[in-house]
């Protein structure tokens, strides 16, 4: 039985005014290595049915990975009980009706068929190319999403992803690189490892830096992470409606540098394309920031209905398990600039710091977009327009809008940065972004040096 047939079976087994079934199938392998040898190798085969039932305006959900007719009937009974246990919800807009999902790329036969031995071989290629101890992984997977509903929805998407993450590290030195695509043929594990080594070799002898405000170049890995954390609140309609996000009271305002434009672009083939969201609404590109002006946020059916002003979902519903977040960005895309490289951005900065990667971000103040975290695995001083002496890991506490308010430039070509969490069911996501040079990056403390 294919995934859509299974979703349809679940819909038929359920009794309710409306029924929506989602099937997520995962077949994946992850060869995780440390100290240049694999230590956490994981092969996963799983298939989950999630069934939502509405009875008299009451919504309940049950999920199971038991896949047989008896189990599906039991699942339907549990989802029905959940629905009957809920109070009627006048703000529930009902499930989506069928509409045509875009044809997207994102599936590659070779990636889907990659055997565990091949996954191990690609991990070995990264390890073999590193002159330093290597930490990271090679992973690839096939994820199938299928959705069926009593309203006539019948959607299916198979998506593949492959990724190499490389941290080259020894005591006192570390460098980071990664590469992600939905086509394994585009992944170069050895080249990724070599880039990590090249960065690591420049981090020996790192010194401390006096806290203060610095101009900075943020590599794609760093700015992607920062934008994602900022976006959880700032670009979610739920935060807007609840008056707690940066966007509250600022829609239509020019709040960032005019060189900064940002979209949620789930259909871009350079990313990890998605055809529909977790409510069955077709995905499309959504402009969030145009030349520094805050133009839109992400909506799902629930928040659009709550807005009460004719707002429509723009295909941004999260998985049901993350519904409390409201709509979430899964495919942020930053417009490229005019710089050829990070080195050119460093020239424009003149005096500042160069940041490869961030670590352990936390939102300090969602209303003002204040985020704290650490830099790691390639932090350098920029002196005289050149990437110069290495620095220890720096604590930063930045208001993202201030960081984006004055930019020295962005690199021309966006890079896909993997943001797949690999927790729970696989759902490959990433951010497409160039490197960014900002006039203001607030360093508020110092941590340990680079390396293990």
């Amino acid at each position, binding site marked *: 039985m294919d995934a859509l047939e299974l979703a349809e079976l679940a819909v038929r087994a359920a009794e309710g005014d409306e029924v929506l079934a989602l099937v997520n199938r995962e077949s994946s392998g*992850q060869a*995780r*290595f*440390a*100290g*240049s*040898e*694999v230590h956490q190798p*994981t*092969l*996963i*085969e*799983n298939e*989950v049915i999630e069934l939502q039932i509405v009875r008299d305006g*009451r919504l309940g*959900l*049950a*999920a*199971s*990975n*038991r896949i047989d007719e008896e189990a599906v*009937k039991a699942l339907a*009974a*549990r989802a029905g*009980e*959940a629905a*009957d*246990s*809920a109070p009627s*919800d*006048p703000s529930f807009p009902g499930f989506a009706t069928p509409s045509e999902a875009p044809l997207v790329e994102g599936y590659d036969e070779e990636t889907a068929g990659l055997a*565990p*031995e091949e996954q*191990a071989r690609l991990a070995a290629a990264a390890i*073999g190319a590193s002159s330093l101890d290597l*930490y990271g*992984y090679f*992973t690839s997977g096939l994820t199938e999403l299928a959705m069926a509903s009593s309203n006539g929805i019948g959607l299916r998407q198979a998506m593949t992803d492959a990724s190499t993450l490389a*941290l080259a590290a020894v005591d006192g030195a570390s460098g980071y690189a990664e590469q992600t695509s939905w086509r394994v043929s585009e992944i170069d594990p050895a080249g990724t490892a070599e880039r990590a080594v090249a960065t690591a070799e420049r981090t020996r002898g790192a010194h401390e830096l006096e*806290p203060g405000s610095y101009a900075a170049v943020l590599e794609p890995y760093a700015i992607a992470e920062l934008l994602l954390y900022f976006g959880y609140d700032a670009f979610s309609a739920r935060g807007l409606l*609840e*008056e*707690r996000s940066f966007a509250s009271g600022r829609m239509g305002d020019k709040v960032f540098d005019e060189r900064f434009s940002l979209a949620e672009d789930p259909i871009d083939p350079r990313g990890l394309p998605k055809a529909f969201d977790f409510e069955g609404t077709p995905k499309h590109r959504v402009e969030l920031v145009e030349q520094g002006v805050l133009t839109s946020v992400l909506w799902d059916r629930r928040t659009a209905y709550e807005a009460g002003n004719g707002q429509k979902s723009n295909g941004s519903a999260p998985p049901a398990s993350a519904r*409390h977040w409201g709509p979430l960005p899964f495919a942020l895309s930053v417009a490229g600039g005019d710089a050829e490289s990070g080195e050119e951005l460093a020239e424009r900065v003149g005096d500042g710091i160069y940041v490869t990667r961030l*670590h*352990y971000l*936390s939102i300090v103040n*969602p209303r003002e977009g204040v985020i704290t*975290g*650490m830099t*790691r695995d390639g932090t350098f001083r920029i002196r005289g327009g050149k990437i110069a002496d290495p620095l220890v*890991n720096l*604590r930063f506490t930045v208001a993202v809008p201030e960081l984006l308010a004055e930019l020295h430039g962005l690199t021309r070509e966006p890079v896909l940065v993997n943001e797949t*969490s*690999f927790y729970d069911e696989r759902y490959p996501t990433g951010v497409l972004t160039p490197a960014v040079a900002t006039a203001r990056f*607030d360093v*508020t*403390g110092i*941590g*340990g040096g680079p390396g293990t």
Partner: protein
Amino acid sequence: MRVYQFRHQRAETIVAAAFRPLVFPAVRELCDEAVSAALAAGASYADARVVQRRSQSVATRNRRVDRLDDVESEGIGVRVLVEGAWGFACDNGLSSESARATAERASAFARAAPGGHDRALAPVEPVQAEYRTQVEQDPFTLSLADKVEQCLRAEQAMQHDDVKVTAAFARAMREQKLFVSSDGAVIEQEVVECGAGIDAMAAREGITQIRSYPSAHGGSSAQAGWEYVESLGLEREAPRVGEQAAALLRADACPAGIMSVVIDAEQMQLQVHESVGHPTELDRVYGTEAAYAGTSFLKPHDLGSLRYGSEHMNVTADSTTPGGLGTFGYDDEGVPARREPVVAGGVLRGFLTSRETAARIGNGAGGSMRADGWSRMPLVRMTNLNLEPGEGSLEELIAGVDEGVYLETNKSWSIDDKRLNFQFGTQIAWEIKDGKLGRMLRDATYTGRTPVFWASLDGVAGRDAWALGGLTNCGKGQPGQHAHVSHGASPARFRNVQVGFRS
């Protein structure tokens, strides 16, 4: 007040039959087949775990249901050691064919794994044993509707003019697990967890503030029945939570400076988690989390000699703590639960270990290996990591401060990859002047370097102020795993702490 009408009696009867618990003798056969297949494929060691989880989550927000889920998951995970290399594979199918195929795939993956492998495991006595959580009220006998009603009542009690968002949540989980190893261990365990919490978010004139109870980020959980949720008294605490969220809108911002701080038990639990728990995980010390969660400022040779903090600092890893989310009979390598010192009198006395890392350091016997369900390989995780109580009360700690702040309930948290530099924010703070609490303060943060901070500890309140809190979102590993861990702590006092940002 009647919050909503019940309409679920008929369905409950159906649901009682709709959930199928594990039948241990049947899954024992599957585990045996998997282990045998792994050995036949060349494994020198193999273990198999069949795990079944059922969890219910209820979340209400602004007095409507945001989430009402009943989720089950089951499968088999097989871990093998082939010529010194680990392999792990898992499958949601529970059949003889899938058990054998999973073992063979794990073995093939291990054989293909690059690296010069040389792994030894600390010995463990293989046992045939059982462990079960003792519960007073099975949470799955309480209807989902009752759980919803409790959340809605708590929300109702938080209402306040300036409170824009109220939220309440409750969860229950039962996990059944059978572990079989090629050493001869057969261990059957059943764990029940329950938890709940409430949030109130207030907003006015561009300022947003939040208060939570009993802790931020999803409330608190315990290994217990529904009696734990009842004991939290959400509805009783809700008015205070709503009022404080609103009051914070008019509170002064916390001043920055170097000062004495008294930290409440909840924030101390997270402080222990981040700055003692993670750095003492021996796999991190050896670098196996370097690419993701990070390493540790500790080195293996620091054991027994490194001064972690002041003499007031006593931390134990205790997988026997009653009600702890890290309490079990045996870990996921079949190592029995135990209570061991991690820091005693301020000196590092122990690491959290697996059989592999214990053998590598030549000390300890493992006991901290835990996997997130059936589909993940066990990793070194915290169990229950507790700051042991000192003496006296919270009031006495505050009385010993001329000028400082009292900090309560985590709001933000971040720490570097070596667990040295941390910055925490709390939801609320109070000025301390001349030994007494003064005005309420908002947006408090404090920052420090782990050993310097713990060296400034000069008082931990006593047993009466000690509280156990459980969190379910401790992330580690790739693919990622959520660990459920508990921490016990009393309020504690630290001197010369940087409050606010340096800039």
